[in-house]
């Protein structure tokens, strides 16, 4: 039977009966290291599984839409599709622009001016997603003869959110203005959205 001090490794301990417990710190270290390594490995293996649920390349490939807007007369709007969501493209009349500009920005729930929501020099082109910011319904107002609501913009029939001629929320439960996607005019009549 060994006694303490007889050729023991520096971190060995001696049990209550005087028996040598082999290097417990070394074993703990190995256990913790092995389990941690396996844990990190398992965690990393989950990443591709999670990432595979993100939009795939074919979905992302649809994320730009090119539109010819030459046929849209002032006061008219069209419904297009952008990323499988409705997109409203509307040419505002001077009266509609004036109505939007006449609203004091500070009175708005989501304060934005018409300038901020359109491109420079293209103030008459209001391009927004046709997705109500409340629960995602498609507001009315882009189609011919549809109810444009009390503010002359868009009106969501689901829960009565009313948007004005700048697509800003004015009444009802929606928290935000209709989203303006990223877009650019590549010529006077062609818009690339996304």
């Amino acid at each position, binding site marked *: 039977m060994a006694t303490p001090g007889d050729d023991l490794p520096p971190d060995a301990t001696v049990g209550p009966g005087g028996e040598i417990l082999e290097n417990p710190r070394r074993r703990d270290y190995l256990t913790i290291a092995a389990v941690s390594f396996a844990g990190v490995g398992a965690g990393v293996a989950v990443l591709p599984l*999670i990432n595979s*649920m*993100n*939009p*795939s390349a074919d*979905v992302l490939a649809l*994320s730009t839409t090119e539109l010819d807007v030459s046929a849209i007369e002032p006061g008219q709007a069209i*419904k297009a*599709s952008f*990323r*499988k*969501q*409705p997109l409203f493209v509307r040419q505002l009349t001077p009266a509609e622009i004036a109505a939007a500009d006449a609203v004091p920005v500070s009175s708005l729930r989501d304060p934005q001016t018409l300038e901020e929501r359109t491109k420079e020099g293209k103030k008459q082109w209001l391009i927004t997603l*046709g997705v109500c910011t*409340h*629960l*995602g*319904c*498609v507001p009315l107002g882009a189609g011919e003869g549809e109810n444009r609501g009390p503010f002359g913009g868009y009106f*969501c*029939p*689901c*829960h*009565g959110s009313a948007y004005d001629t700048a697509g800003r929320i004015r009444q009802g*439960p929606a*928290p935000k203005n209709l989203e303006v996607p990223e877009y650019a005019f590549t010529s006077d009549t062609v818009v690339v959205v996304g």
Partner: protein
Amino acid sequence: MSFPWARHYEPKNPLTQWIDSRLPLPRFVYNAVGAGYPVPRNLNYFWNFGVLAGVALVVQIVTGIVLAMHFHSSAAGAFDSINATIMRDVNAGWFLRFAHANGASMFLLVVYIHIFRGLYYGSYKAPREMVWLIGVVIFLLLMATAFMGYVLPWGQMSFWGAQVITGFFSAIPVVGEWIRIWLLGGYAPDDAALNRFFSLHYLLPFVIAGAVILHIWALHIPGSSNPTGVEVKGEQDTVPFHPYYTAKDGFGVGVFLIVFSTLIFFFPDLLGHPDNYIPANPLSTPAHIVPEWYFWPFYAILRAFTADFIIAAKLWGVVAMFGSIILLFFLPWLDSSPVRSANYRPMYRVAFWVLVLDVLVLGYCGGSAATPGIVVLSQICAAYYFAHFLIIVPIISRLERPKPLPNSITEAVLGDKGGSRMTETAVSA
């Protein structure tokens, strides 16, 4: 654990003896739902609903597996594969489809009765908290499964339901929109969303089946509760599960199947929404989006929040809707009354029935268009729902003076109607 007087499995013939000594599965079944499980002798028909939920799960899995053999999980093909192929061309496809759709309603119906049975008779109390907690998990899994299943026919309500429900996640600050896109695998519900919902809709019932085994396992540790809430005190208080409750449950299953068949064969679309017979159209929203009836109370809570207060109203709605279920996890500790059964709790019994009414009114509100009057009614009822669990039940459980309990289940069965008789030795369990 089982009671010491539980009968023991004794295989008679050499084959069952051979099996028992190698894989004691028949013994396990005998002890779980056979003559080896002693059950209180006084269970009423409300105790049928756990078994009925199990029957509904089996019906859904069996019909679902066959339907999946004919279903096309693509945005282009899903609607036609159900409404043309399955409903018209597949042999008995219409029957399987209506059985599966109405089976979901029957499942939720019996689960709601099962849950309210637990609320009335205090089944969530010690020592059965774990049974209750697993039950709430099963309920959440069931809701997720039902929602994803409703999306699969890819009709207008399917599509816009998916849009609105995944829209809940966009209410989460900062990362919400990213989570929503991740859940859908796109910017709006489409092929990616439909396929993953189908995959999960096929998976989750088996997860539910696993959770049900845990639910029953946890139940069999203390044994079943009973309408008096008084624990079993001796062999005279119990009868073997088989044949007594297999027979009683069998009768209940018969009634269940009559109601179920009536729905399938006479009113197959009663509980569905006609708009779901219109193919999904991402560019046109139905005028009135409603979920299936079993989600109406929660939908009403969601829509009850109309004003921003610190956080946005939309986020409040989502938090409250999920909170209304998460709250149930805390119920065993919110109700500190040592008396289980509402039969002996005069104040709690009133509160229970007011809650039932409250949830029914919430359901009515959730199924109606959100007019200002309905919204106000939803707000009152949603506030009451939370008040019931967070204020009323904790206070009642401290103030209330329960009626005297019977000394034992046997005394309650053989004596007068429970609670009417005062005995000197009556103590709360």
